[in-house]
């Protein structure tokens, strides 16, 4: 049952020159980082300020940092795929390597880029928007982050040690089963998603509790800012969708490693069950990554159109409807699996219904901008680019929703083009808009707007050049996940155009990175006050960078966009008596517990069950330690707060004087 690999099998991926090269590159990079940290004596600083932190702002920054790293890796994989298919009969990658690359590209981009980028924004913004001092469970928040990070480590280790997942990001059985896939590749898939998924579930519980219980006094549900609303809905979906993934992955592990027959091809097993349960989680997952991005666009559009959001109530209603419908459409991912017309009919209808609340939101954004005085900043450009591009994605989605027509589109590049047209303008533009929009809240200076705009245009143009040809290729019958094709098919030209687009997208990513470098170097000139965009919601009411306690005095809320009206009326929202502030203690336990769980998963991947169980017991000991630990937190005293506030206000006065 437990087949173990020999060492040469474990390191087999390194025989591929491309992987060997990357591995050496990573090694050099790691050595450089370690040497740098040692040389500048930063280990202690890193450990106390980041590894042990339970501060939601720092955790948010770490999430976004990991997301950008993973975006780099996922992007390189995308480039390799486009390069491989750019010309017919290309020999750049072999078929196995191509399989691994498109599988990890999908997993990375959804689970390790889109999710952490959004979690980063949740962490940074939500407590500030609702006027809270931290999230409900700061310790759990740290554990969530580190578990997620260990999942990311695991999937990245896979391509050097043992081999990456190679059955697509959906890992359908029987292909992903032990019979056709005897290596450890898909064990990695199961375990890395499992531990990062646990982290995600905890994040969901944490933010649902935070938003329900910790809103500032007076902030009733219909006065909650739109980003918090949309994230709340997303977190609700997380809480109810991720247990499904947990179970699916447990069953996958049991089938692959313990010989059960859930998805087997014999003894009554049913491979369709995997596809079914995967998409029961997978479809809501799409809404988890898109709804918060909708929230970002709502904030950005109303801020830069200088108007309140049009149709606030209908925005909320449509998101609640989307959250319910998102659980009722999953079978549209496998219309061609053989179920009867009644099933396909029902799921066709529910799928098309989702277009209605989404359409409502599109019109609300358009009407918010109507008669507005629009300023074209980088975040606003992303929001403006989002609307038309996303609409193309949405309309092709309705095409795909029709079950009978789907028999033509199924598993072609048309589908690939469709979901990139939804996820890139939706999620990626959304998180990038949010990233430019809220950057100064954390660092106290802004990203250079002109470079940001260059980045936007490269990404927007590159994206369309890459993915629009795929619609045509798909309608022409080009199946997804093909590693090569012959010249006679005539697919060459459009694939080449697509590759060129991918190169432009890569330039866009470089512009993003250069912007960080440029802005850090010119941070003195780019320094701003706590409210650089003339914002509307509470996060702009405090200073930038935000002090660790967030608000010296928790504001009282009487209406939506309270901060905007307070500015108009010349009120100070933080007026009032400053009191001692209770804060949670930092702790290294979440980090070490995650390391242990990450190692346990790693040994599970290689069927080293004994070591994995010992590490599992250590995890239980960590939980026992947490149960017995008496941690009453600490207090920041009034004098210290007053001193911090005085300094921050002094800086802000100077900045206002400068401008």
């Amino acid at each position, binding site marked *: 049952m437990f087949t173990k690999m020999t060492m040469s099998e474990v390191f087999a991926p390194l025989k591929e020159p491309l992987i060997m090269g990357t591995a050496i590159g990573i090694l050099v990079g790691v050595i450089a980082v370690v040497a740098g940290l040692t040389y500048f004596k930063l280990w202690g600083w890193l450990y106390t300020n980041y590894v042990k932190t339970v501060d939601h702002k720092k955790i948010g920054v770490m999430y976004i940092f990991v997301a950008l790293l993973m975006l780099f890796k996922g992007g390189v994989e995308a480039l390799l795929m486009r390069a491989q298919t750019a010309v017919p009969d290309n020999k750049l990658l072999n078929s196995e390597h191509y399989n691994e690359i498109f599988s990890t590209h999908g997993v990375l981009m959804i689970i390790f880029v889109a999710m952490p980028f959004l979690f980063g924004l949740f962490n940074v913004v939500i407590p500030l928007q609702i006027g809270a001092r931290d999230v*409900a*469970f700061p310790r759990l928040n740290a554990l969530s982050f580190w578990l997620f990070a260990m999942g990311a480590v695991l999937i990245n280790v896979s391509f050097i040690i043992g081999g990456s997942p190679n059955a697509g990001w959906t890992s359908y059985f029987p292909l992903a089963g032990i019979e056709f896939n005897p290596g450890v590749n898909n064990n990695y898939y199961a375990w890395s998603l499992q531990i990062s998924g646990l982290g995600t*579930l905890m994040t*969901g*519980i*944490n933010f*649902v*509790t935070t938003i*329900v*219980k*910790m*809103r*500032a*006094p007076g902030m009733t549900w219909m006065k909650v800012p739109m980003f918090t609303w949309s994230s709340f809905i997303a977190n609700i979906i997380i*809480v*109810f*969708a*991720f*247990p*499904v993934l*947990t*179970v*699916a992955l*447990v*069953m996958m592990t*049991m*089938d692959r490693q*313990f*010989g*059960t*027959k*859930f998805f*087997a091809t*014999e*003894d*009554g*097993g*049913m491979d369709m*069950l995997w596809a*079914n*349960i995967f998409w*029961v989680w997978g479809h809501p997952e799409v809404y988890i990554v898109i709804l918060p991005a909708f929230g970002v666009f709502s904030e950005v559009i109303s801020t830069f159109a200088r108007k309140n959001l049009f149709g606030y109530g209908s925005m909320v209603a449509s998101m609640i409807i989307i959250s319910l419908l998102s659980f009722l459409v999953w079978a549209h991912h496998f219309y061609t699996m053989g179920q009867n017309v009644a099933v396909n009919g029902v799921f066709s209808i529910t799928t098309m219904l989702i277009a209605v609340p989404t359409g409502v939101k599109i019109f609300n954004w358009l009407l918010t901008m109507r008669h507005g005085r629009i300023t074209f900043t980088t975040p606003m450009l992303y929001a403006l680019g989002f609307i038309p591009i996303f609409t193309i994605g949405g309309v092709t989605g309705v095409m795909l929703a029709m079950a009978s027509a789907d028999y033509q589109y199924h598993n072609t590049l048309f589908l690939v083009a469709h979901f990139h047209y939804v996820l890139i303008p939706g999620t990626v533009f959304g998180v990038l808009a949010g990233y430019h929009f809220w950057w100064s809240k954390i660092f106290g200076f802004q990203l250079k707007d002109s470079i940001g705009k260059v980045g936007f245009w490269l990404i927007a143009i590159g994206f369309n050049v890459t993915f629009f040809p795929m619609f045509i290729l798909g309608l022409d019958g080009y199946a997804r996940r093909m590693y090569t094709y012959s010249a006679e098919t005539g697919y060459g030209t459009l694939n080449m155009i697509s590759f060129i687009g991918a190169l432009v997208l890569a330039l866009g990513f470089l512009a993003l990175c250069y912007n960080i470098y440029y802005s850090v170097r010119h941070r003195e000139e780019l320094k701003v006050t706590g409210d650089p965009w003339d914002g509307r919601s509470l996060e702009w009411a405090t200073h930038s960078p935000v002090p660790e306690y967030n608000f010296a005095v*928790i504001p009282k809320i009487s209406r939506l966009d309270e901060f905007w009206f307070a500015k108009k009326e010349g009120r100070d929202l933080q007026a009032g008596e400053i009191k001692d502030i209770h804060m949670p203690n930092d702790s290294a336990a979440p980090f070490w517990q995650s390391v242990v769980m990450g190692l346990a998963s790693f040994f599970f991947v290689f069927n080293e069950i004994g070591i994995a169980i010992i590490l599992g017991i250590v995890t*239980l000991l960590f939980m*026992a330690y947490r*149960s*017995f630990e*008496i941690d009453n937190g600490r207090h920041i005293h009034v004098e210290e707060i007053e001193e911090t506030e005085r300094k921050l206000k002094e800086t802000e006065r100077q900045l206002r004087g400068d401008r």
Partner: protein
Amino acid sequence: MSKHNNSVPLEYQGEENDLKIFGFWVFLGAEIVLFATLFTAYFTLVDRTGSGPTGVDLFELPPVILETFLLLTSSFTIGLGVHAMRLGRVKPMIVFYIITLILGAGFIAVEVDEFITYIYHEDATIQTSAFTSSLMTLLGTHGAHVSFGLLWGIAIIIQVAKHGINKRTANKAFIFSLYWHFLDVVWIFLFSFIYLKGMM
């Protein structure tokens, strides 16, 4: 927004306690979906027995009734434990919690015996067929929850014995009781829709 309302029971007092209880309800919502997914697999695969035994071959009423009785009673005793805690009476509380755990351990013992019967007398292992895989995974997940509850319960009892009933221990003990009652609710569904329906 911390409410220092002394009219609510001790376990809710203070902002952190209130948050923890609410957060645990959210977690229980996630657990409901987790078990629903396991049920999905079970109901889908229930008739796919391959060459292995069917439910009618495997299930026997007496151990199931015993398990149900043990778990229902333990749910009652932990309810009494929380009641005693709210009266501020440490000793009866600890006694009720200990009885609960003993009943829980009894449940696990019967369940282990049931699994041994399946494996050694009916030749039905978790690898036999899709039906046995889904059955044993579903029962096993519930059993693992109960076993984890035993460890957790011991940690709670030690802390209450050591520190008495205060905001912190009362909160922990109450959350544990929610967990325990929830496992009883899950068992009701296993009892009704696996065993009884399987024997109909």
